[in-house]
């Protein structure tokens, strides 16, 4: 049970990463590699601020702002300085590696016995548990602190999903989505598509950094390496989400991304439980994304061949 709650909690936290990437990869169709750096930025900045005595809420707000700035810079590198999108992201990500080390002053900050954003929920639960350290769920004892973080992340996820859905359906959000679809049309309707790209990347990386900040609080540490491979991770989650629910409608797409992230996390927890070497995890994820990207084409050409064969017969 603890394992499942843990996987769910990480899944919910990383959903914010997926939602951010949904904006860049799917809405404005920008292959943004900044993600690997900005998730660490969120984690390291919030860890340092918490160690300095800031409230965990202010710390994650600052993480969001810092992530937005990183995303905006990637956007400006691409739109103003005409650097290819992948290269713009790589430049920012590389710069962030040093920036994150600077912020933390070392490569790893442990957050032991510090307050987290789930403090309030935890106190409420402790009251209802009448002082006990565990709460029974389906007969299993679950530590109150774990449950509190689970509930807090769930609330975060639901609120952000609703706000994001509403936002994407506004006039501004509609223009944002059209930017990825047809920038020529967007300009012809009087919208500066470059501004839209910069804004979208800021929002996207803000969410990613937020996800990193929550992850640091949950795991109890920030590490300069923690962002490596996160982009592929998010992409895998988005692909699973699309396979689960399809792409019809904003609300459905967003729900799909969240479900996809949680499912992916659960699958990984199970695989690890079955003895998958954690060192192989990134290889397996990369293979999975490769298969998911190639499978549709493979099946198409396969069915074509098959149909042709039957025509001859």
């Amino acid at each position, binding site marked *: 049970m603890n394992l499942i709650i843990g996987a769910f909690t990480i899944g919910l936290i990383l959903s914010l990463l997926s939602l951010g990437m949904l904006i860049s990869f799917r809405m404005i169709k920008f292959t943004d590699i900044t993600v690997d750096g900005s998730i660490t930025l969120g984690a390291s900045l919030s860890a340092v601020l918490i160690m300095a005595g800031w409230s965990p809420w202010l710390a994650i707000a600052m993480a969001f702002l810092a992530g937005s700035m990183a995303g905006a810079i990637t956007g400006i590198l691409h739109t103003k300085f005409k650097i290819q999108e992948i290269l713009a992201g790589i430049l920012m990500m590389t710069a962030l590696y040093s920036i994150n080390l600077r912020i933390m002053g070392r490569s790893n900050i442990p957050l032991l016995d510090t307050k987290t954003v789930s403090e309030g929920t935890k106190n409420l639960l402790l009251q209802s548990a009448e002082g006990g350290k565990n709460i029974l769920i389906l007969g299993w004892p679950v530590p109150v602190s774990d449950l509190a973080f689970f509930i807090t992340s769930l609330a975060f996820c639901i609120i952000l999903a609703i706000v994001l859905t509403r936002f994407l*359906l506004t006039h501004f959000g509609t223009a944002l*989505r059209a930017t990825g679809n047809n920038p020529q049309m967007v300009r012809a309707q009087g*919208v500066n598509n470059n501004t839209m790209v910069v804004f979208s990347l800021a929002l996207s990386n803000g969410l990613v950094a937020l996800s990193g900040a929550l992850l640091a609080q949950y795991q109890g540490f920030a590490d300069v390496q923690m962002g490596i491979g996160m982009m592929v991770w998010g992409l895998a989650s988005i692909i699973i989400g699309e396979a689960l629910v399809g792409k019809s409608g904003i609300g459905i797409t967003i729900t799909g991304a969240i479900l996809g992230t949680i499912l992916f996390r659960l699958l990984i927890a199970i695989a690890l439980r079955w003895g998958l070497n954690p060192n192989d995890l990134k290889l397996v994820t990369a293979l999975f994304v490769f298969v998911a990207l190639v499978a549709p084409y493979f099946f198409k050409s396969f069915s074509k061949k098959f149909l042709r064969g039957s025509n001859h017969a």
Partner: protein
Amino acid sequence: MLKIQGLTKTFFPNTVNEVKALRNIDLTIKEGSFTAVIGTNGSGKSTLLNAIAGTFIPDSGSIVLDNNQIDQWPEYKRATLIGRVFQNPFAGTAAEMSIAENIVMAMKRGESRPLTMAVTKKVKDEIADRVRMLKMGLEDRLDNPIGTLSGGQRQALTLLMATWLKPKLLLLDEHTAALDPKSAAKIAELTRQIIDQDKLTALMVTHSMQQAVDLPDRIVMMHRGQIVDDFQDEAKKRVRTHDLIDTFDRVQKRELFDESVAKLLLAQYC
């Protein structure tokens, strides 16, 4: 009113690929008039429209539209004054978004886009009312992705979008060229209808001599980046398709002649 003076654009200047796409163009278009631009392939018709729309900034010359000097404005800013329909039926709409979402984009052309719901029930009714006029049955499919429609249907919607907020200038670049003859005729008729109704100022590039004779009230002929002929008022009323074709031939012959003379002279002097 649109006033163009000394408009020049050279692509790849000072290289072997240099193309003088626009050479010192002067053109004034009266408010409420409908002008066709015709000319051979590569004569600079699209370049002229793109220069007005702001796809690029011209090398020199001025463009004044409705008392605004717009030649240095970025493309998106010019869209506050200009509505456009492209030759490619896919260029004017966002394929993955619904008909309603596409049109809602056009309902705020050049205005600020607030954080309020875009496609509300009220907006949808308003859209359905105007889409019904197209008589294509699209009013029942407002939630479908626009990419599922035919080229003709998409072009009709792009035309509707370009004119939803009355533009100071409507630019049409061979907007019926990619359609089958029946759809092309329908879009041409729709174009005339909308321009008449809203008394729009319009500039239309076409390869169809018939369209050039039938629809507009002025014909401008381009060749090699220059305006070589201009049929207005009485001259336009008299002009027939074969006159246009004759003019084409004359222009091309004169050019052949020019070139052979140039070669002769070169041979003599070098």
